């Protein structure tokens, strides 16, 4: 093969007949193959990021990323039970669509997320709610599943058949809703870890029963439970790589065991009531189970059990203080940097709670306290100072508006709205 320059000075290859043509074709083929291989490799490495995922920053802080952008969970637990109904009410199919009214108020406040404890029975109803909230108000949903906590008889996490049954249920939920654009993440369980301690819904196995040491018994239960959650998480990841899976957990109890057996979980969804702050929660999690945390249940009630009257200021004081502590521990703040945000308990009051088996009581806004917690110190002198029917940041009244109980935002609604607009952290105060 000879070469020279043409009139334009470009290098040309002078043909030497068909043999040369064949060699040229081979080069083209080789180049095409190389390009194809290159694109294949590039395709492998540049697989699109999940729709929602948690990024670990260089400073080891955790940040939730949604559609490519950092996202702070600013939310509420949502269970809009009307006055006169109980927790069994299927609000998902409510013809008056409470989420439309609530969603508007939420959007005005700055809420971007609701947490639901479980989905309604009719998938079409659930999808409609999710779509309405997302499309109308840009509000996403943290989808929970009880993981059999309230099954009868008590859950038996050591029983393979029970595990299979729950796995099937959970994966069905994931399959049904994973493509809904409003889904933010999955939460497995609520305070199910307390069942390992025997505090609620106690369960056991023959092997555990034969163990004489009660501390070892607790460890054995926790190992079974968290291992099961880990397997479930892996299965969800296979079905839905687009959303994180969080572990619902009461306080930080037994997370040292989760650290050994539940490493596939993406985040901890913590349920915690500690008054004006969360104490050492965020740093403590760093040392026991270093995962991102979203506070999926916290808050304060709006009834002063000592003064025996509604106290919106008290609720607003605690909620603002709690949100400040959350913000101090977000990524790139001065705290532990492992908090993704939270969903406070809760959007609206639930009047059925005092005595759920008494339908007449569902029409009464009961003021009897359920339990005492000194960290809510403003009315702690009352002893039992927690009023479960008064946790809403929105009060309900018996007056109806378009078929729904009239909603009246409490002071905390406005205080948190302002805080989210202009978060003042401790460092700003200095």
């Amino acid at each position, binding site marked *: 093969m000879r070469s020279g320059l043409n009139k334009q000075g470009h290098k040309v290859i002078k043909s030497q007949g068909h043999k040369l043509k064949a060699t040229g074709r081979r080069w083209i083929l080789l180049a095409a193959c190389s390009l194809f291989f290159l694109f294949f490799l590039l395709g492998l490495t540049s697989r699109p990021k999940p729709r929602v995922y948690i990024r670990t920053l260089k400073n080891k802080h955790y940040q939730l990323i949604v559609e490519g952008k950092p996202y702070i969970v600013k939310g509420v637990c949502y269970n809009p039970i009307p006055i006169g109904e109980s927790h069994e009410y299927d609000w998902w199919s409510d013809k008056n669509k409470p989420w439309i009214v609530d969603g508007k108020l939420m959007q005005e406040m700055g809420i971007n997320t609701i947490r639901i404890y479980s989905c309604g029975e009719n998938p079409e109803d659930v999808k409609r709610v999710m779509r309405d909230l997302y499309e109308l108000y840009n509000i996403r949903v943290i989808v929970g599943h009880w993981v059999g906590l309230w099954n009868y008889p008590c859950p038996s996490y050591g029983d393979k058949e029970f595990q299979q049954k729950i796995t099937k249920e959970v994966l069905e939920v994931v399959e049904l809703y994973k493509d809904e654009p409003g889904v933010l993440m999955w939460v497995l369980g609520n305070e199910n870890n307390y069942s390992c301690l025997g505090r609620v819904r106690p369960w056991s196995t023959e092997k555990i029963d034969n163990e*004489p*040491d*009660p*501390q070892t018994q607790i460890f054995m239960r926790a190992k079974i439970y968290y291992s099961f959650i880990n397997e479930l998480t892996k299965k969800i990841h296979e079905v839905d790589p687009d959303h994180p899976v969080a572990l619902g957990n009461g306080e930080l109890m037994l997370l040292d065991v989760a650290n050994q057996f539940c490493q596939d979980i993406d985040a901890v969804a913590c349920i915690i009531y*500690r*008054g*004006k*702050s969360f*104490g*050492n929660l965020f*740093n*403590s999690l*760093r*040392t*026991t189970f270093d995962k991102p945390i979203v506070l999926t249940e916290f808050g304060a009630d709006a009834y002063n059990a000592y003064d025996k009257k509604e106290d919106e200021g008290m609720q607003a004081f605690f909620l603002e203080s709690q949100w400040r502590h959350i913000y101090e521990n977000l990524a790139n703040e001065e705290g532990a940097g492992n908090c993704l945000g939270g969903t406070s308990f809760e959007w609206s009051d639930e009047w059925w709670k005092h005595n759920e088996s008494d339908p007449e009581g569902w029409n009464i806004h009961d003021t009897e306290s359920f339990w005492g*917690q*000194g*960290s809510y*110190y403003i009315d*702690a002198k009352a002893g039992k100072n927690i009023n479960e029917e008064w946790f809403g940041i929105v009060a309900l009244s018996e007056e109806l508006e378009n078929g729904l109980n009239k909603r009246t935002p409490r002071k905390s609604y406005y205080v948190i709205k302002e805080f989210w607009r202009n978060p003042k952290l401790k460092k700003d105060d200095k």
Partner: protein
Amino acid sequence: MKRIQSLALTLCILVALTTCVFAVSEEFVVYSDKNSSDNHYIASGWMGDHGDLKLNDQSMQEPQSGKTCIEVVYIAKKSQNQGWAGIYWQNPANNWGNKKGGFDLTGMTKITFWAKGAKGGEIISKFMVGGIKGTYPDSAEVEEGPIELTDTWKQYSINLAGKDLSYISAGFAFVVNADMNMDGATFYLDEIKYEADPDVKPQGRKKEDMPFYVFADRGSINNHFIPSGWMGDYGDIKYNGGSNEDPYLGDTCIKIVYTGAVSQGARWAGLYWQHPPNNWGNQDKGFDLSQATKLTFWAKGAKGGERIEEFKVGGIMGEYSDSDSASIGPVILNPEWTQYTIDLKGKDMSYIIGGFCWGTNVDVNPEGATFYLDEIRFE
């Protein structure tokens, strides 16, 4: 001319006033000598087992300076069933916050006093400044103790720098208790005064040295928490902080009898060791135990097999909550002394008011439980 005279007079008055204020701002006396015109407070606020106290404010028993000092005799007979006693120096006398009085002591940075015991070894639970509540509350409350006295005069100082001393009606106080002075105590005080010492700077919360005891022995000066937080069926608990039934170390240990009688209907009972007593998070007085990596204690059951659901550190929730909590349990006790450890690594021990706690219930101890504790300490 009259104007000049008037101006000169005004200047003289101003100079005199300035000198006077300056003198006041240098030191302010609580007690220097009986009948001294410098004394500003009266020893009128008798507390607790006041029948156990005698005070002589003109003792001539080798005063540290001047002609007299204060002699206090505490007989520890628990006359009013309190187990402790104390006296406030008040202004005006008997002012428990119901009268306007007191002084603005802004600018003072410390209070100093001299003290000695008749024999040495007398333990004063705490010396205090301020702390009176009521309609006219003191603007500050500062305390220091326990302090073990020597048999010779020694000067003590309490740092007040950075405290709001704008209204102090209780200029000084002491508290003693029977546990730490089982045979009573006689001690002396002299030259109690506030001083404006520019070298004294505000003090942060002190990081306590380790080991730091919750309970060492009955009446030990090393005991830092009080078993005052009785919970649940508190009527089911009998507490003996001076049991001499085979203590693990020292002369005494703690004996607890839980009857399981369900006196208050709770079906469970527990006890917190608190600082100060009865502090359920309503007093900002926690210890900084940041240097602790564990809490250890020794325990045994009277028979063995007694089940304690939880042993715990911290966890009191209130306006001033414990900074963290850690626990072990359930624990089934052995009949012989066994050491237990609560791991505190990674915990925030910077503010602790609940030094130790146990809790159990009748369901796991249907016939009640008798158990012993000793050497409870942070390390």
